[in-house]
């Protein structure tokens, strides 16, 4: 592809290679460690589900028991497999017995390694097949009823009540939405467990539970068949339960997941060691399940200035790309994030936004970029807000973005009302249709404002990545170079859930899922 921005390919290669080294450095750390969330995910993928009498999820009960018995560094698969060989029970029955105090999972006699492996892999393979089938089912839908054109229209529902969410989601799909994201209740990212069952109360969103996933999946399949378009379901695979939510999403055929360790570190104060390890496994699962991940670079711009800090977004996109590749997640599933967040009073701001979006498009040509709407400078003037969203939509169609999170005229007032979504979808559809091929028709002036801006941002991003390469990402975050937020290596939430693996450690799902279906 010829660069419309006259970007220097050597600079792109150099930035990418620095990002690769940064990711590799972290990967060495990741490979040595596991976490309670990773092990709970292994338990879930082996079929453990449900809660005990005080609503504590059985995966937590089981992993806590292994941790207390000093066995976490060997991994849940080993202990579950060993218990299966010893008792002949299923993982679920074992979890129930552990919960009832009938067995001490780390005190059972240690069976022969081959027997343990055989039991574990047989069970693991069943789940892997199930997830593969889900992927095939999605492909079948896409091949039969089809899908909306890119950029996909992505809207949010956030009533707190999954059944109310269903109504709003179905309405949005009928109005033209392609992706429905069920926003999580405030604070769920900080829970070190995943709540259970259907839920009808939440603040600013709805709990992510496996049952809620199932309810919404069914509703969207139904409405998708009705409107003749596959409707994608999105949730949030971030916070302290990253890989568990990825597993639940894979089991219930979610299509899109927010998935970004840096976001959790910076904006939810989650410990960086914990969340990088969690992210790796979650991305393996997302990659295998055909889930498009969304990264959270757009959020830096809500705390930093979008014009001045634009290069940090690009730098983070490079890093996220490398982390995703390490986890075997293909470029076609990388919804790298960015946003239309420059101050609307900035002269030629539209040109700078256009430069940024075009630049991301050229540097990550296969990635379905996730483009986020203006939020920071939305004022309550719904009429002006509607125009700001229109400018954002114009850039999206011009630069061929992948996932268009629609801005709402009522942003900064309330969670979207039913008609707000309709107005936003209408706005996007009008502009996408009316300017469909603008990107193929219009080129940018050589050394003009747009080209120069993109070249400058790329140069600064490359410089930043080389700095990070020298310092390592952990130190960089400690110094507050992303989003202007400082976080310490040992601070934040969840560090107590990280443990170094011992020699016997194994996780069958990394083996079975890394790099896609074999």
């Amino acid at each position, binding site marked *: 592809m010829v660069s419309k921005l006259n970007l220097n390919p050597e600079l792109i290669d150099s930035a990418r290679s620095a990002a690769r080294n940064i990711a590799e450095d972290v990967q060495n750390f990741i490979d040595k460690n596991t976490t309670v969330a990773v092990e709970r995910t292994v338990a879930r993928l082996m079929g453990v589900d449900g809660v005990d009498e005080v609503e504590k999820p059985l995966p937590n009960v089981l992993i806590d028991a292994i941790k207390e018995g000093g066995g976490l560094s060997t991994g849940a698969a080993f202990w579950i497999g060993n218990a299966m060989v010893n008792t002949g029970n299923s993982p679920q029955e074992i979890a129930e017995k552990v919960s009832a105090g009938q067995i001490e999972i780390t005190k059972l006699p240690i069976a022969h390694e081959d027997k343990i492996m055989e039991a574990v892999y047989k069970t693991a393979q069943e789940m892997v097949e199930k997830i593969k089938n889900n992927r095939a089912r999605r492909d079948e839908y896409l091949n039969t009823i089809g899908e909306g054109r890119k950029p996909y229209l992505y809207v949010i529902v956030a009533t*707190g009540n999954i059944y109310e969410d269903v*109504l709003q989601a*179905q*309405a949005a*799909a*009928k*109005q033209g939405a392609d992706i429905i994201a069920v926003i999580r209740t*405030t*604070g769920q990212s*900080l829970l070190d467990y995943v709540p259970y069952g259907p839920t009808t109360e939440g*603040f*600013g969103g709805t709990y992510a539970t496996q049952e809620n996933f199932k309810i919404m999946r069914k509703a969207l399949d139904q409405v998708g068949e009705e409107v003749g378009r596959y409707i994608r379901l999105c949730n949030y695979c971030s916070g302290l339960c990253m890989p568990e939510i990825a597993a639940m999403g894979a089991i219930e055929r979610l299509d899109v997941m927010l998935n970004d360790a840096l976001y959790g570190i910076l904006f939810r*104060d989650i410990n960086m060691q914990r969340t990088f390890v969690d992210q790796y496994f979650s991305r393996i699962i997302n990659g295998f399940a055909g889930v498009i991940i969304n990264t959270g670079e757009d959020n830096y711009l*809500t*705390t*930093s*200035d979008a014009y001045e800090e634009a290069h940090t977004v690009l730098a983070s996109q490079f890093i996220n790309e490398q982390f995703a590749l390490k986890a075997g997640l293909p470029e076609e599933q990388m919804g790298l994030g960015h946003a239309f967040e420059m*101050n609307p*009073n900035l002269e030629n701001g539209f040109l700078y936004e256009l430069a940024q979006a075009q630049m991301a498009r050229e540097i990550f040509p296969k990635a379905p970029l996730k483009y986020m709407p203006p*939020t*920071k*400078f939305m*004022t*309550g003037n719904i009429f002006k807000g509607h125009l700001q969203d229109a400018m954002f939509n114009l850039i999206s169609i011009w630069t061929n973005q992948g996932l268009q999170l629609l801005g709402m005229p009522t942003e*900064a*007032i*309330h*969670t979207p*009302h*039913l*008609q707000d979504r*309709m107005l936003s979808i209408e706005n996007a559809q009008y502009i996408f249709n009316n300017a469909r091929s603008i990107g193929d028709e219009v080129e940018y002036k050589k050394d003009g404002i747009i080209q120069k801006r993109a070249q400058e941002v790329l140069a600064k991003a490359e410089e930043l990545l080389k700095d990070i390469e020298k310092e390592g990402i952990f130190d960089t975050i400690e110094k507050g170079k992303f989003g*202007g937020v400082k976080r310490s290596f040992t601070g934040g939430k969840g560090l107590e859930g990280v443990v170094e693996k011992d020699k016997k450690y194994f996780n069958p799902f990394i083996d079975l899922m890394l790099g896609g279906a074999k």
Partner: protein
Amino acid sequence: MKSVQKVDLTKIKPYGDTLNDGMVQMSFTLPVPYGDEASEAARQLAAKMGFDEPAVVYSKDLGVGYTYFVMYGKCSHTVDYTSIEVPKVSMEFMEREEVEEYIAENIKRDVVIVGACTGTDAHTVGIDAIMNMKGFDGHFGLERYKGIDAINMGSQVSNEELIAKAIESKADAILVSQVVTQKDVHVANLTELVEMIEAEALRDKLILVCGGPRISHDLAQELGYDAGFGSGSYANHVASFVVKQIVEKNLI
């Protein structure tokens, strides 16, 4: 030519293109299927709201048996503008440099301000706009002010944590931000903070300020705060209020 009619401030009503035409534009959704009956329902509802000649100028099927309307109507009510009183933070706001000078001259020590977005609200945009170095829209935040020690605790801070931090840092003022709220939880949250501060016998020793898009000065005072700042407030507004209150309440 007819002279332009003079406004009667004791009986004001909306202005469209002629004085006292009462014209109002509005939009809403009704949970009924799109069609003539839906439009008639919207028209009747607007009439009940006090609109003469209600007219549906646009309606749209929202896809789940619900219909959206854009309407006009002539408001039949009036309000006496001359009798209106709105409590406000009534003071001359100073610019950053002036606040800094004011502190140096009148307080002669660092002013400690602790801020947080409390409860389950995870939106730091409000408190960041006021407190962070960078500020918002070209107005620097309190961290940039000489003579102010600004402590931004971020979001999802409990009222207990906020008070503990205020005691530990010997704060002169507490700023509470509430941005996104559901079912008016912000009111309960703000009320709880005041009650807890009173229980600690700290109310007289602290300037208590809240802010957010749903906050008015009126509501803030009703809840027991010294001031409330709504949308469009900047760090220098809050800083002006806090430093003057410190002097006024003799908390130097």
